[in-house]
């Protein structure tokens, strides 16, 4: 049905850039993505979704749908075998709508049929009677207007997280300020826009359980939500990772997992579900849109005196990961700067807008756009260069954040800015129409085109914060295969494209001193690996593989009777002085040594609910960007000419994969700056297609310059620092700053549209 994702590769330990073990399958077209899964005799599942963002369901008639030839099942909430609600953090989302729908696209009914067309006809024949209600679509009103109706009984507030340090309202504090800048900012809804659509295959098993093949970021959290809804014990829900066509946070929440399993259990047949692109826009959570009010005060010499901020994040109809997004926005709300007086209030709201949850950068992205815009405004008011103002206020190791947390590993922001500024600017180019904003549309031959340069800085927490029991599990087996020592590494961690499969093999090679490593397919037969999110898998699953390898090594050393500090090198057991004690082949013989380990990072604390104080984060990662843009100020067209970045990753585990993460993260930040927005009116999505939701093409994304620093984090495996998210933070404000420099406009909303630049729409 599907090829195992197992692959074997040779050579390449930690710090090298071996070829991805899944590379050959992917370039041959043989890698099985979840949408490629196929089993003979399978049925096709389909989902009926609400056309209304808010409505009462007064009746559902499935009779006409069931009468259609080839239709095997039509299910509603009454058919959910167990718990009717699921959710990644709070179990507040109905598997299928019960009495009310809270967003456009909410699943109402399911169909399984012999053929997808029969399934589609059946969907059209289900009669749902709605009493349409006025949607709650203004997050600010939902939160602060006491007359607002509620999305869920009693409240529209998912979480309020304050941060308090000093007193920005003290007149004595205000008196220290030479400038005070107060502005409102807005971030639109960004979509992860992974290219591989949501899809999955469920196969009923003889014991009454289910085999589930899905593309997800977190198998075990899926499992913990799915099993109770199916009223099955977890061991009867056997999950296997199918090929993932990108994720970026959009696969952290469930999509069709419970639905496809329900249809398979109900019909006793394998069922496949595939969303098409339009359905995908309604089938996963997006990046929270934000409305933010920021006030910065600084002294004449450029030192920040205070920051006040109110951040309202719109989570849509259900909680999803909104509580953690609020915590990130609050705790990182002033950016990587030392500020003595801070008052932040971050809120997450329920509305009837599209549901929002995890997307790369997760709460930190929204705040970063606002605080970096403020830093530029303060610099301008003081007549200072933007990067110099940032250096004056930059955190460094030992700095205290407004949450009271002391940064206890390197954060060399000032040096990173020095490196960034020292990078050469792009050389001047000969006139080429294709390089003008507007390109071959022949909109300008250079008249009206202004160049701008801007800087952006971002700080992201790595791994799960706030006391979450964050761990990963790895099982490593060492044995002789074909006369050669070989390791099998088994985890449940999701390879979403980032290159974790490569990294796991690198770590096993280095720790076990062997070449041949096989990466077993990720499934639920091994313990929880946590999510491929929060830039955490190199740290956490990397750490787990390292520890499991160390445990295997320990047993080999004991078997060989070698001293405890012996190493495994080149297939041999070697003393610390380099003396060969034994060949691995002789020590292992016919036995396999297998060890499983859980790896945890050091504990963190909840933020104090009133003050935000606490050591809530594990690790901090910084990225800085410089953007060069050309803007046609008459037409409002932008061309990003070049992006340069400096990032400190602690330890370069795999340079090729790392650069790929920085490039890709930067591109998504570019998208948020000038292109990407799910546009919503009255709770309804206006542009659910790649025709109307624009992601950067190869012509939009310019060449990049990179500099990567390695200041080790002593608390992390190999000293590494999570790397996937920080570039997504800082590229957006850098591009906006460059456009501001070119146009002189304030630009307080992203994405920037042409009409914001030409004065046809107030910005």
């Amino acid at each position, binding site marked *: 049905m599907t090829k195992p994702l197992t692959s074997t590769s040779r050579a390449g330990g930690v710090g090298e*850039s071996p070829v*991805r073990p*899944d*590379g*050959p399958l*992917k*370039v*041959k*077209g*043989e*890698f099985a*993505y979840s*949408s490629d899964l*196929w089993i003979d005799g399978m049925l*096709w599942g*389909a989902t*009926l*979704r609400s056309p209304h963002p808010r409505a009462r369901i007064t009746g559902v008639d499935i009779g006409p749908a069931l009468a259609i030839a080839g239709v095997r099942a039509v299910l509603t909430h009454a058919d959910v075998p167990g718990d009717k609600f699921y959710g990644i953090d709070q179990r507040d989302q109905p598997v299928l709508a019960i009495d009310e729908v809270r967003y456009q*696209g909410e699943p109402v009914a399911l169909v399984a049929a012999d*053929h*997808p*067309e029969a399934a*589609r006809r059946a969907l059209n024949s289900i009669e749902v009677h709605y009493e349409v209600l006025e949607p709650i679509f203004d997050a600010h009103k939902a939160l602060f207007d006491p007359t607002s109706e509620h999305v869920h009984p009693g409240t529209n507030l998912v979480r309020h997280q304050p941060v308090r340090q000093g007193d920005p309202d003290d007149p004595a504090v205000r008196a220290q300020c030479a400038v005070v800048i107060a502005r409102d900012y807005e971030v639109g809804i960004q979509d992860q*826009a*992974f*290219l*591989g*659509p949501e899809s999955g295959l469920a196969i009923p098993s003889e014991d009454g359980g289910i085999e589930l093949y899905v593309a997800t970021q977190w198998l075990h959290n899926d499992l913990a939500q799915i099993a109770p809804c199916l009223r099955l014990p977890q061991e009867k829900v056997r999950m296997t990772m199918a090929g*993932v*066509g*990108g*994720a*970026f946070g959009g696969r952290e929440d469930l999509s069709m997992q419970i639905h496809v399993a329900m249809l398979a259990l109900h019909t006793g047949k394998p069922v496949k579900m*595939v969303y*098409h*692109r339009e*359905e995908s826009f*309604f089938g996963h959570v997006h990046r929270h849109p934000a409305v933010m009010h920021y006030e910065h005060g600084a002294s004449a010499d450029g030192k920040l005196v205070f920051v006040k901020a109110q951040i309202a994040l719109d989570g849509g109809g259900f909680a999803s990961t909104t509580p953690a997004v609020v915590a990130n926005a609050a705790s990182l709300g002033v950016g990587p700067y030392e500020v003595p007086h801070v008052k932040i209030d971050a809120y997450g709201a329920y509305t009837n807008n599209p549901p929002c949850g995890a997307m790369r950068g997760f709460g930190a992205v929204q705040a970063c756009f606002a605080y970096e815009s403020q830093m530029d405004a303060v610099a301008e008011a003081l007549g200072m260069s933007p990067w110099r103002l940032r250096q004056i206020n930059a955190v460094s190791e030992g700095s205290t954040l407004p949450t009271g947390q002391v940064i206890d590993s390197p954060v060399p922001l000032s040096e990173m800015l020095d490196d960034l500024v020292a990078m050469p600017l792009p050389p001047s180019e000969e006139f080429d129409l*294709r390089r003008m904003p507007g390109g071959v549309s022949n909109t300008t031959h250079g008249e009206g085109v202004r160049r701008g340069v801007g800087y952006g800085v971002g700080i992201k927490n790595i791994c799960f914060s706030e006391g979450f029991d964050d761990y990963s599990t790895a099982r490593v087996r060492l044995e002789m295969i074909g006369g050669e020592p070989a390791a099998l590494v088994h985890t449940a961690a999701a390879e*979403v*494209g980032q290159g974790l499969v490569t990294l796991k093999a690198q770590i096993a090679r280095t720790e076990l001193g062997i070449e041949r490593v096989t990466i077993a397919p990720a499934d639920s037969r091994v313990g929880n690996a946590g999510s491929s999110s929060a830039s955490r898998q190199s740290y956490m699953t990397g750490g787990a593989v390292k520890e499991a390898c160390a445990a295997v090594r320990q047993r080999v050393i004991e078997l060989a009777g070698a001293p405890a500090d012996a190493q495994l090198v080149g297939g041999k057991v070697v003393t610390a002085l380099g003396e060969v004690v034994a060949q691995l082949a002789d020590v292992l013989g016919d036995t396999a040594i297998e060890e499983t380990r859980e790896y945890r990072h050091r504990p963190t604390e909840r933020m104090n609910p009133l003050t935000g104080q606490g050591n809530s984060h594990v690790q901090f990662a910084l990225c800085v960007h410089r953007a060069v843009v050309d803007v046609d100020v008459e037409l409002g067209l932008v061309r990003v000419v070049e992006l340069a970045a400096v990032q400190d990753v602690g330890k370069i585990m795999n340079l*090729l*994969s790392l*650069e*790929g993460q*920085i*490039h*890709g*993260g930067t*591109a*998504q930040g570019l998208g948020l700056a000038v292109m990407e927005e799910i546009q919503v009116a009255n709770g309804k999505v206006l542009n659910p*297609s*790649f*025709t109307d939701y624009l*992601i950067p*093409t*190869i*012509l939009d*994304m310019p*060449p990049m310059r990179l500099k990567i620093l390695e200041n080790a984090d002593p608390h992390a495996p190999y000293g590494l620092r999570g790397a996937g998210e920080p570039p997504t933070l800082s590229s957006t404000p850098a591009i906006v700053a460059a456009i501001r420099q070119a146009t002189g406009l304030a630009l307080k909303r992203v994405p920037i549209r042409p009409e914001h630049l030409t004065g046809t729409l107030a910005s």
Partner: protein
Amino acid sequence: MSGLFEEIHEQPAADVPTRRVSITVNGDKRVAQVEPRLLLAHLLRQGLKLTGTHTGCDTTNCGACTVLFDGKPIKSCTMLAVQADGHEVTTVEGLAGASELHPIQEGFKDEHGLQCGFCTPGMMLAAKALLEENPDPTEDEVRWALSGNLCRCTGYQNIVKSVMWAAKKMQAQSAS
């Protein structure tokens, strides 16, 4: 919002008109009885089980379904199977030789031109068409040739590198 994009009748109903098509796919002549409305992408993926041709957007924006049609890159989600009757189609499964990868495949694999890999088949086929027409492209020319194919993971930097690497290798091969 109720549609599914995977549509093929393995045994079309008697009342549905069908056409017989003969298409040379990766060098092999394939014959199928199809409905006139069947998309080429669906014939490839479901009828012929060549799932390396991916469908990502259904609207001809993303290019994941790019195949070569008589050597030219086309998006197979907007071509009908009947339009391919009598023509040659190359998919990603037809890129490699019997024992070795095509230099473009090697380039994407070795230069980290892929992450999730969903866009990769389409990217490689668009690149193949470019390199056949222009064996020694500039980076700008590579970018223009691939501008109809979206990638969400890589930021495109290593895709450009991969194609440049392949161009070099193909030139060296044809020189020797």
